[in-house]
Structure formats: structure tokens, C-alpha cells
């Protein structure tokens, strides 16, 4: 899948993604899902690492953000990334089902929210929002 990223100046047309999740199993599955779609991806284990990787100058077309993580959770990380001016598509991915919790996550700056486990069809629906 060759897609123009949200950020210009990329040498490659390949879409890029950042997986932010403290769970090893989920990181492995999300990595494989993205790989299958031809999306170059990197994984970090908490919100702070997600912020740090952006501070280092890297940007991504898509960020898959878990909610519950140690050190810095997904809500705080999303908030900070938006305050930094990061305009990437941020999709929250969590097992939380309470409306109040999901609303707080969305209000932090998400573009989309999907309940875990993430499937190929859910990921494709997220990507359509980037391209559409």
C-alpha cells in the first residue's frame, strides 16, 4: 500500500506507523498486521517513549496508541503529542469499554478509537480515514 503521508518530504511513499503498547503479544500482532499491509512500523512500550521518539524528530502517518501503560498512559501521551503539534492520525486501541474512559481518551486528541483486539478490518478502517 503506497500512500502519501500526512507529513511531506518523505523519501519513500510507504506509509509509516508507530505502535505504542506495553503488552508484548499486542505489539507482535499489531506489527504483523501493519507489515501485512506494507506499512513500515516501529514499536515502543509506553507513552513516554512515544513522546521521546517524536522529540527525536521522527514522525509517523499513523500512531496506534494503547490506553493503559506504565510510566505514561495513552491519554497523557496523546495530549502531549497534540500539544507538540503532532498531527498524525492517532488511533486509540484499548480493551476499555466504559464510555466515560473512552471519551476521556478521545478528548485527549484521538482521531479514531478501536476496541482491542485489533483485527485487519479494524486497521483498514483506520487507514481509510487517513486516505479518505
Amino acid at each position, binding site marked *: 500500500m503506497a500512500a502519501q503521508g500526512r507529513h511531506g518530504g518523505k523519501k519513500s511513499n510507504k506509509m509509516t506507523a508507530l505502535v505504542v503498547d506495553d*503488552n*508484548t*503479544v*499486542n505489539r*507482535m*500482532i499489531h506489527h*504483523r*498486521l501493519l507489515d*501485512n499491509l506494507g506499512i513500515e512500523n516501529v514499536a515502543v512500550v509506553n507513552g513516554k517513549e512515544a513522546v521521546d521518539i517524536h522529540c527525536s524528530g521522527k514522525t509517523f502517518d499513523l500512531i496506534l496508541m494503547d490506553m*493503559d501503560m506504565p510510566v505514561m498512559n495513552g491519554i497523557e501521551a496523546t495530549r502531549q503529542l497534540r500539544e507538540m503539534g503532532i498531527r498524525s492520525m492517532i488511533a486509540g486501541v484499548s*480493551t476499555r469499554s466504559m464510555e466515560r474512559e473512552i471519551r476521556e481518551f478521545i478528548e485527549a486528541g484521538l482521531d479514531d478509537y478501536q476496541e*482491542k*483486539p485489533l*483485527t*485487519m478490518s479494524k486497521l483498514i478502517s483506520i487507514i481509510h480515514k487517513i486516505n479518505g
Partner: protein
Amino acid sequence: MERNPMRRQLQTMRKSLFDQGYLDDQFVQLEELQDDANPNFVEEVVTLYYRDSGRIILNIEQALERKTFDFNKLDAYMHQFKGSSSSIGAKKVKAESTLFREYCRSRNGEGCMRTFQQLKKEYATLRRKLEAYFQLARQAGPVETACRPK
């Protein structure tokens, strides 16, 4: 219809894992991520799951040995455990996890302990069944065409 008897046995084993409620559709999602470049993806994920979740089980066991239960901590551990279990399609394990969390929320220590014992049984049973399944899958060899009954 699968001609290879070992493949037939594998299909039967797989079908029973779903029919008996051990696995749900998420397992199929993992199978669909498997290809020639990643022929053992499902087994790798399941192996990782048992490695990681084993630590959480231990944490919960230790927490349940305490005189006073920290239900918030127990719930947090189980939230993590349930997430992983859900990601591999471990249906019965996930159901016990949900029940455990309900007991945590209602501060029912006995319920937690009882459910945890059942959860460990389901967890161990699934592990045995999946190990047997993957062993047979390795013996049967790769399929040439994707032909997975739902």
C-alpha cells in the same frame, strides 16, 4: 475434502478447539496473518503469550497469598492478563478473567480465589491442547492452499 490423514486429523482437532469453546474468532485472525514468510506466526504468538502471562499469573498468586487483598492491584493484573488472552482468542480463559474482575469490583475475595483456580485450569488445558495442535501441525507440514473451515 482434505486427503492427507494427518491434515484431516489437524482439521478435526482445530474444529474441536472452536466447538468446545476454547478459542474464538481472534485465533482465526491470527491464522490469517500467517504466510510463507511467517509460517509459524500463530505458534510464536501463543508461545509469547504463555511466557508473558505466566508472570502475571505469578503476580496474582502472590497477591492472593496476602492477608488483605488489594483488589485494585488484582484487577489491574487481570486487566493485563485478559487483554493478552483476548488477543490470542483464548475464549474460556477470557471468560474467567472477566468473572475474576467482577469479583474484584465487588471486593469478593473468595470469589476471586475460586475463579482464579478455574482460570488456571482453563489456561493449562488450553496450553496442552494448543501444544498438541502445533506439534501435529508441524508433522503435517504446510498447506499448499489456504482452506480453513470456519
